[in-house]
């Protein structure tokens, strides 16, 4: 079936729904395509809060500086300025929509401290801030009557005359492939955590949007910048929010020392995430870990603070480790958490492809540069979600309805059919995914080396070959997840390749990219972004660079 809209948003997390709401407000006929119900989106897992300089004595300049310093000076400062200037207004807007933000004694919005920030400027709802924003925004989508194609899985973007004009989408419940045509498309499909094992990310974070946009011709920028969160639960790898440290929790090594005093004497546990994660890794490597973990100690915060402000992580540690953090410290370690890089966009969310926009984790504006500050990701989603919604609706207004696409529908049907028809050879989707993800964690994780990265690239080539032999373990029509998992693995391979290539190219250490062969930051040669552009299967992507936009903050030595 073929259907037409003005704007189609891929993804229904905070960025996607915010884009859709804004496009609808601008009068566009907008539809959301999402492979899971909007409420299942991974934005709900964001725990700690959202940053804005609202309070007296704080300023957007201070927020911007912290963000830029946190990014290890790889963020584009014009984009950071936009985000930090507009943050207060957008947070107030969400408050007016109904988010039950924490209040101070005067009934005004109250804050907590967060990593890498010079002021307590993180606004929050307990430790379920993402969920609180997501449910409120979802209810606004219901109120606005935005069409949602729920459990529809995008397989390919529809390109016509060099412009993006919709997408081919598999309806999970019926197994039918549809063509959804639009004048503009916003990709807001979230991150790629499944590329790493372990990861804090949900099973649905499979990098769909990076690959779809990349294959449509949009360059991916700074893909090497993969964030490891300092506190992920031992074993499962679930997120233990930075808000724990924001509220005052300690990180301890096996000697019971607050080891951060060696690495970040001023900010201690609230240094930027890359710094803290590396410190933990060093402690563990030098034999001061506990079974490959360090300890997150919240005991001195008391039961009241823990149960009122951090109830969810209290419950998670209890459920999945049997540890009551009121009485015992929790073993944690650095774990893959977030992709700073992504589809290159301007501050309006526009890519270089006409009609194609991106927002949220999948996009790279770039406001996070080499390392994202905690509580800046929710902010990124709502600011650039809104801006891309407005820009895409504006673009759609002056664009004629798209036509054609039957050919894409046919070729995609054939491609999926060929996947279903593949004979079983013993190669399983889950097995290959696990190998890939374990390899990425080991060779393209917190520390990288020339040797390791080249091995990783060879491995990736091997996985690509083996991927051609992965059979779809279900020949059915209805809710064929085996089919979508194979498609997702394809997306992940594209993400993996671009991350490895970008990491090989960047011969320095900056932010999350720690290269042991080039341990120093090199502003002379590397104060620039790397862009990778797809040139077809079997060919290396085209590599290009653009300088980092510096407005008023000159790069300095970065200490916390």
């Amino acid at each position: 079936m073929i259907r037409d809209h003005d704007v189609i948003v891929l993804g229904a997390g905070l960025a996607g729904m915010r884009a859709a709401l804004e496009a609808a407000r601008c009068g566009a006929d907008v539809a959301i395509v999402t492979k899971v119900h909007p409420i299942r989106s991974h934005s709900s897992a964001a725990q700690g809060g959202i940053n804005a300089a609202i309070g007296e004595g704080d300023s957007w300049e201070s927020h911007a500086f912290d963000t830029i310093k946190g990014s290890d000076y790889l963020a584009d400062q014009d984009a950071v300025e936009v985000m930090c200037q507009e943050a207060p207004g957008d947070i107030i807007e969400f408050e007016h929509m109904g988010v039950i933000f924490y209040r101070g004694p005067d009934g005004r919005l109250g804050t907590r401290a967060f990593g890498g920030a010079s002021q307590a400027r993180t606004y929050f709802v307990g430790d379920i801030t993402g969920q609180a924003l997501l449910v409120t925004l979802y209810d606004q989508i219901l109120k606005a009557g935005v069409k949602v194609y729920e459990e529809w899985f995008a397989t390919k973007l529809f390109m016509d005359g060099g412009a993006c004009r919709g997408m081919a989408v598999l309806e999970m419940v019926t197994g039918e492939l549809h063509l959804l045509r639009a004048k503009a498309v916003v990709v807001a499909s979230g991150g790629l955590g499944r590329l790493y094992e372990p990861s804090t990310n949900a099973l649905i974070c499979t990098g769909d949007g990076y690959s779809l946009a990349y294959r449509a011709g949009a360059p991916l920028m700074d893909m090497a910048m993969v964030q490891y969160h300092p506190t992920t639960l031992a074993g499962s790898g679930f997120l233990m929010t930075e808000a724990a440290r924001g509220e005052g929790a300690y990180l301890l090594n096996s000697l019971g020392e607050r080891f951060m005093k060696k690495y970040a004497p001023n900010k201690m546990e609230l240094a930027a995430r890359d710094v803290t994660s590396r410190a933990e890794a060093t402690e563990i490597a030098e034999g001061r870990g506990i079974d490959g973990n360090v300890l997150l100690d919240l005991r001195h915060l008391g039961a009241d603070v823990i149960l009122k402000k951090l109830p969810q992580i209290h419950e998670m540690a209890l459920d999945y480790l049997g540890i009551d953090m009121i009485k015992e410290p929790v073993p944690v370690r650095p774990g893959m958490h977030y992709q700073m890089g992504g589809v290159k966009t301007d501050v309006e969310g526009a890519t270089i492809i006409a009609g194609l926009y991106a927002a949220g984790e999948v996009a790279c504006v770039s406001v996070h540069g080499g390392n994202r500050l905690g509580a800046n990701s929710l902010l990124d989603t709502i600011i650039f979600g809104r801006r891309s919604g407005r820009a895409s609706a504006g673009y759609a207004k002056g664009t004629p309805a798209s036509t054609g696409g039957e050919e894409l529908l046919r070729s995609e049907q054939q491609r999926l059919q060929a996947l279903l028809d593949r004979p079983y050879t013993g190669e399983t989707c889950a097995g290959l995914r696990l190998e890939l993800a374990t390899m990425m964690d080991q060779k393209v994780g917190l520390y990288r080396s020339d040797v390791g990265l080249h091995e990783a690239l060879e491995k990736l080539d091997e996985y690509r070959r083996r991927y051609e032999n992965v059979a779809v373990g279900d020949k059915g029509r209805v809710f064929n997840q085996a089919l979508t998992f194979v498609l997702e693995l394809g997306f992940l391979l594209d993400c993996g390749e671009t991350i490895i290539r970008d990491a090989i190219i960047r011969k320095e250490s900056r932010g999350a990219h720690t290269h042991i062969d080039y341990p120093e930051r090199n502003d002379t040669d590397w104060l620039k972004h790397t862009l990778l552009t797809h040139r077809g299967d079997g060919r290396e992507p085209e590599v290009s660079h653009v300088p980092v936009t510096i407005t008023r903050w000159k790069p300095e030595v970065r200490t916390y």
Partner: protein
Amino acid sequence: MQFTIEVGRYNTENQYDPNAVPGPPFPPPWDSSPARRYQTFSVDLPEHAVVLDALIQIREYQDPSLAVRCACRSAICGSCGMWINGHANLACKSKLAEFTVDGKTRVESPPSMPIIRDLVCDMKPFWDKHLAVRPWLENKQPVPPSNQEYRVPNASMEELIQEVSCISCGACLMDCESFAVNPDFLGPQALAQAYRYVGDPRDAHTHERLGELSKPGGIWDCTHCFECVQQCPKGVAPLDQILKLRKLAVDAGYTNNPGTRHADAFAESVKHSGRLNELTLLPKSVGLFNIIGQLQTLPSAINMVRAGKLPPLIHKTIPGIERIRKIFQRVGGRFK
């Protein structure tokens, strides 16, 4: 550790057979497929593993055709609400060891919801009910300027965290006794969300909302079975929210409905005689002047007589009734 899982399958024509010759493009749609059956799997997992770990392992390494919704694995996204040993639970929060009964764990799509495939049910009834309570803020006027928040006490926000913690997993509705017999009942999740907005000091539609919620299918159709409180994995306790709504609705004057009359008749009887007068409870609930309504209760009354369930015709007052009445006075409110 070895665990045995019995999984309710649906859409059986799609069994995974590694040696099978690929079939036609897409087999016929699911509604023509055979009914449910159970398939037994054995999985080797650590002793603290949860049901979802088992399902993922089955799907990844034993039978890729097993359909199951899941995302976060940590009780945040609400995807994996399903029946485990005959009750609604989150698969990611249910420890296998605790849910092993007679050497096995039985997992299936909840019978109260339409089934799509295997463990994937159609959540449409759930989302329809959510939408029906108009779950969005109707801003109290004047809305503060765009650089200012509503000034409200933190306690009023903190009180709503319980409802906002709802992850829409559907466990409460899946096991709701009222929903089982009355598909029009709004159900625990939607009513808890209704309270989330009724209880919000920034909402302007409190009165209208309470009026809507007092209608048939609303707050008075809950039978207090406590299943929703028991099954909710996030402590939302929907029944508690329903009881809060009832009190607010009565206080707001929405008393002309069977639910309020039922509660009144209940309280009056206890205050009067110290015990429940079942003979007058039903007529009073329906409304004494509601002739048609009274006639409609006749078949039930006759059935009760036939079944020997007729309450005593002479209603006796218990000894010490004064003390009961003192309790009413102490509590105050409508029944003082």
